[in-house]
């Protein structure tokens, strides 16, 4: 099964842009998991944790988001958050708190 493309963006910078098996988003009206081919959806996101799955059982990243909004289109999932902090997984240092990571040239 194809992966779903996942982007996490804050006003300060783009935090993540990668492919994942599934992303679980804490929606205002309940958590929902987004897999590839999900129907178009817009939802507000409550403060909580976004879970990124690389396979059915394997969580690769936990990201704490605050004040957000999620949009699922045929291109993938985009989460716009005011704050995002990667709690575990790759790029845990490159969170929006503390010193921002140097942008690539």
């Amino acid at each position, binding site marked *: 099964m194809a992966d779903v493309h996942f*982007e996490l*963006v*804050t*006003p*300060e*910078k*783009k935090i993540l842009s990668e492919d994942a098996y599934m992303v679980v988003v804490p*929606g*205002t*009206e309940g958590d*929902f998991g987004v897999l590839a081919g999900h*129907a*178009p*959806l*817009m*939802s*507000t996101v409550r403060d909580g944790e976004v879970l990124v799955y690389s396979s059915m059982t394997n969580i690769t990243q936990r990201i704490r988001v605050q*004040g957000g*909004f999620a*949009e699922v*289109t*045929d*291109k993938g999932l*985009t989460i*716009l958050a*005011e*704050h995002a902090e990667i709690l575990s997984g790759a790029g845990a240092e490159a969170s929006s708190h503390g010193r921002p990571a140097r*942008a690539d040239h």
Partner: protein
Amino acid sequence: MPSLKALKIRIGSVKSTQKITKAMKMVAAAKLRRAQEAAEAGRPYAEELTKVMARLASGVTVGPESPKLLAGTGKDTNQLLVVATSERGLAGAFNSNIVRAAVRKARELEAQGKQVKFYLIGKKGRAVINRLFPGKIVHQVDQTHIKTVSFDDALEVAQDIMHRFEAGEFDVARLYFAKFQSALVQIPTETQIIPVEIPAAANDKTPESGGPVAAFEYEPDEEEILAALLPRNIAVQLFRAFQENAASEQGSRMTAMDNATRNAGDMIKKLTIQYNRSRQAAITTELVEIISGAEALKG
């Protein structure tokens, strides 16, 4: 003709001025790069939000029940001009360009019989606006202690403005800042932030993918999402303005200081020539005196 001593002092002082402007130029150049990177990093969010807003707004009909931030209060008698300037001067025409754009609009609005008030961000616009429109400044945000603006700073300002809007202090709010184009060009820009201007893309029914707009599921419903997004949109617009301003300020300062350094260089050259001429003239005079004295003794 100034004395040799005076010229020497003058050259020394111009030289130290040049050192300062040169240092300021280099600092501005370094800061500019960072500010530019920050502005670029913030672009995806703003673009996404604009897209989403446009899509949402095209599905919602503006009626009396719509949120006031979208529909407005139905009046436009009280106008608020949010003027974002810098906290520091010595940045060429950066601040005066922004202020000039705001003042022009204020005059225009007053001529139409509207009430104009100013909401200042940064202290550099205060003097001029206070002189031209005394007593019209409702608030001034101090950003002196902020090194690089974060989204929270913008959020704070946005909340204050929205609070004033809800209290009925004004009907329409416009934001003034300088859009960064290059180190040489910064464009004073006006955007309406309240009521929200729906971007032109709202009427564009054919997205880039070419297919028909997919039917979205909304969670909660469209109105509620829109109501949640509207205040955020204002904060994002302010944040964008701050970032553009930060880049523009440094760009403008860099150019101004580069010019100042070059002018100081020209001045030093001119003064040095003048100094050398007078020195030579003094030596010649002395020589002539000695020779003619010797000649007189011989005779």
